């Protein structure tokens, strides 16, 4: 059969992280894939070597706009690991609150976009509306909807005021009923079942081989969550459940994220209600020579930072590894053999930044344009519509 090469990417206006995928298709079936990243390689590791330990926190907060707290969290823990030391109890709780608020808004953002790709724009609107409430809470707590600038080596920069806590709790409570409704609407929908079950399966063996992270691994039955395995922050003092499912398909990845949102809301509320009194900063004055590792569970999986100090006030080496770096290669294991109309949602299921989908263009070997990015989202949405018709759902 004639093979066609489908370039996906690299630029996309919706989110950060441009990536480039070269899909080889036979008819509608994907038979091979080549990935190229680095279109937005900003040299942050190199840049960080020129900043002081405190300044680096701000630079690396700008690595990602969605999970902007995960990088400073891992970095500050890496710097603290050089010594090694633990931060004050109240700082641990505040860090946990910020990290969980971020997880809730990140998962809701993902749910909305996944709904859009599947032609469920109502899900998209609802999820993003709920996300706004959480962003408001983050604004009350940190002064910003994103890029919270709360972290510093040794503690946090800003305390949470007692009078803000009831307002935040009220706002969080207000979204729970709608979240429950959204959960039911998504998980009980027969069309969504038909559209996502058995699609883009990442097996347990493949997940271990690729060392997949976060919801991508937990959906394949690999029970790995740093918040349970290597507790940090206040996670070991709070009662919450790790969500693990067995099938590894797109549906299970959605289930993990939706159920995790509820766990995160639970952690967020418990932390706000039980915020211990005390100092928020350990006042680190100097960092001794040595090396430290900090890793935390970001919404997409483990964020890993390695920092080496030579005794000066700047890191001698700073290595950053974001979760998508490990999750993206699993695309190779999940997309091959699937149809082109499922390629968008399989990629979306690992929750990368969606740069690829919108700027996709399908060309044949002579360079003639066959489909644009909108056409591929349309292909995906039409498949849902077709399924609805076949199943007699309106």
């Amino acid at each position, binding site marked *: 059969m004639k093979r066609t090469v489908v370039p996906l990417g690299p630029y996309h206006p919706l989110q950060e992280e441009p990536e480039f995928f070269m899909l080889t298709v036979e008819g509608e079936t994907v038979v091979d894939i*080549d990935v*190229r*990243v*680095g279109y937005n*390689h900003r*040299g942050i*590791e*190199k840049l960080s070597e*020129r900043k002081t330990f405190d300044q680096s926190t701000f630079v690396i907060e700008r690595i990602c706009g969605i999970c902007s707290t995960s990088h400073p969290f891992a970095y500050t823990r890496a710097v603290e*690991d050089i010594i*090694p030391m633990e931060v004050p109890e109240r700082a641990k709780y505040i860090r946990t609150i910020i990290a969980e608020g971020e997880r809730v808004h990140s998962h809701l953002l993902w749910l909305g976009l996944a709904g859009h790709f599947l032609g469920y724009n109502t899900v998209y609107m609802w999820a993003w509306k709920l996300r706004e409430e959480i962003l408001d809470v983050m604004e009350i707590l940190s002064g910003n909807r994103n890029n919270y600038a709360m972290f510093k080596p040794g503690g946090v920069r800003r305390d949470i005021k007692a009078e803000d806590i009831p307002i935040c709790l009220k706002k969080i409570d207000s979204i729970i009923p709608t979240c429950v409704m959204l959960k039911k609407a998504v998980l009980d929908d027969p069309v969504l079942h038909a559209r996502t079950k058995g699609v883009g399966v990442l097996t347990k063996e*493949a997940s*271990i*081989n*690729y*060392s997949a992270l976060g919801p991508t691994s937990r959906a394949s039955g690999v029970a*790995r969550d740093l918040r349970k*395995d*290597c*507790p940090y922050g206040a996670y070991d003092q709070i009662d919450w459940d790790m969500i693990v499912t067995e099938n590894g398909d797109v549906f299970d990845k959605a289930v993990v994220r939706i159920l995790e949102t509820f766990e995160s809301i639970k952690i967020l509320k418990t932390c706000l209600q039980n915020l211990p009194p005390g100092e928020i900063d350990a006042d680190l004055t100097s960092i001794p020579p040595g*090396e430290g*590792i900090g*890793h935390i569970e970001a919404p997409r999986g*483990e964020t*890993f930072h*390695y920092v*080496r100090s030579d005794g000066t006030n700047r890191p*001698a*080496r700073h*290595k950053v*590894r974001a979760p998508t*770096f*490990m999750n*993206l*290669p699993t695309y190779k294991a999940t997309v091959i053999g699937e149809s082109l109309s499922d390629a968008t949602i399989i990629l979306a299921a690992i929750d990368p930044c969606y740069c690829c989908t919108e700027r996709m263009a399908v060309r044949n070997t002579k360079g003639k344009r066959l489909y644009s990015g909108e056409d591929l989202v349309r292909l995906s949405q039409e498949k849902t519509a077709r399924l609805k018709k076949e199943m007699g759902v309106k």
Partner: protein
Amino acid sequence: MTREEVLKDIQTKFGEVIIEVFDKSPKRAYIEIKPTAIVPVAKYIFRDLGARFNIASGVDAGTHIEILYHLTIESINLLISLRVKLDRENPAIDSLATSFEAANWIEREMHELLGIEFKGHPDMRRLLLSDQWPEGVYPLRQDYEEWDETAIRDRGV
């Protein structure tokens, strides 16, 4: 196995290739090994001890190039960092990508940014740097110098 048993197990199995063990804290252990032994040691920790491969980090230490392979054994909350030191003039080591897929991308990254050769890597195509980037220029080396006169990124701040 407990944490102490795991560390002891590695030391008895690979005693002759281990140069130094630094037991830093309850959650961290650094083990320096001979570069020639990286594949059997890393494979043993990954497959037999059930570790997850976090990532590797390459460092240009001036006199030599260092690679740390980070592996986490979640059941005992221990992060093992395998350290190898390579000759700076001609850094080369066996590839782990054939043992487990997780090492594939990071070896490509270290090859581009630090100029380390990974012997037997299945796919050494360029991953991060732009197509215009010249061969043999490695941005994370300490003696890296700006090569692109039109670039403003490295004028120093």
